């Protein structure tokens, strides 16, 4: 079972690698940010599976912190790309 969990982690790491390609290729910044966002979710998933493999409840906290903070960079990004650099893309539309 443990071996299976690590194999699952390797699979998830594969999706992370693929998303890195998207971050690299772009072509625009929204694409790059999306790639980083998907890697954030992938990281949460890997952290959960690692916690399961180690049967260590405290490892879930890492997933918790990642899940809480992974979106912050994306929020900072959409703020940065709004018209005045401090806005909300929904206001601009």
């Amino acid at each position, binding site marked *: 079972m*443990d*071996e*299976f969990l*690590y*194999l699952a*982690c*390797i699979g998830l*790491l594969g999706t*992370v*690698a693929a*998303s*890195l390609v998207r*971050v*690299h290729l*772009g072509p625009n*910044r929204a694409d*790059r*940010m999306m*790639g*980083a966002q998907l*890697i*954030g979710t992938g*990281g949460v998933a*890997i*952290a959960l599976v*690692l*916690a399961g*493999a180690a049967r*260590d409840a*405290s*490892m879930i*906290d*890492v997933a*918790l*912190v*990642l899940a*809480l*903070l*992974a*979106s*912050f*960079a994306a*929020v*900072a*990004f*959409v*703020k*940065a*790309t709004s018209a*005045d*650099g*401090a*806005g*909300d893309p*929904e*206001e601009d539309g």
Partner: protein
Amino acid sequence: MNPALLFDVALAALAVVAALSAVAGRDLFASVAFYIVYGILIALAWMRLGAVDVALAEAAIGAGLTGVLLIGAWSQLHRKGATETPPGPSSAARLLAAGASASVAVLVAVIFVGLPADGAGLAPAVRENVAESGVSNPVTAVLLNFRAYDTLMETIVLAVALAAVWSLTRDELWGGIPGLRQHARDGGVLATFGRLLPPLGLLVGVYLVWAGSSMPGGAFQAATVLAAVWLLLVMSGAMDEPAIGSTAIRLTIVAGPALFLAYGTGGAFLGTFLGFPADVAGMLIVAIEYVLTVSIAATLALLVAGVPRRQE
């Protein structure tokens, strides 16, 4: 090779690729995005090394707070047209640099591999004394008791870093408010997110500092989460940054380190600098950690916010 080790190798390789992309890429925004990804991967590496406390710190700081800081910096550079650099590739120089860097890496690796495999460490000494430290999480015991002097200096480093950042303020804006006034559409997605997430984040932060004495977690990880909540509240327009001239905010920043320092000094007069008597150590450490958490959270949030850009 078993799957666990295979995963380690793959993760390590991916982290190196992300780091290389961050430093060697052509697009500055892509570099920042790669660095954020890199932080996530490093947090996972710490989990695999069994260092959950470090994984929490890296997830919160490396992947979270630093990301916001860097994107904020990129945004300002982008607006001032300073994201492009004049190309001046000298491939010979680059080759030389690559050779030098690679030799350092190889030298370090060779030295490390050549070290005795049993590796003397302090794990046994910590195990022996952790019962007297007042907390059961060995990492917290080291941070707040065995090496409390380092941690005291580190909290002061944070306060001084903030003073250093503030020292870059233009004179006419001294005492003003960091960053731009952030706004969001009323009832929009961003505003809603900024109201839903903070209570949860607050809960996670309190949980982390509470858990810290017996499980992985502690003041720094909790403070980072709280600082992130603060920044989200600001970004979603729910609250504005405080003016740095505010006495209340300055007192909040120095309260934690000051209490820690005062406690340590009191101990010095009674016999032991930063000494925690074993029977009350747990209580004292928890008290200091709670105050530190608040101070560090405010300091980190203001460090990311940067220098004042407008007057009150």
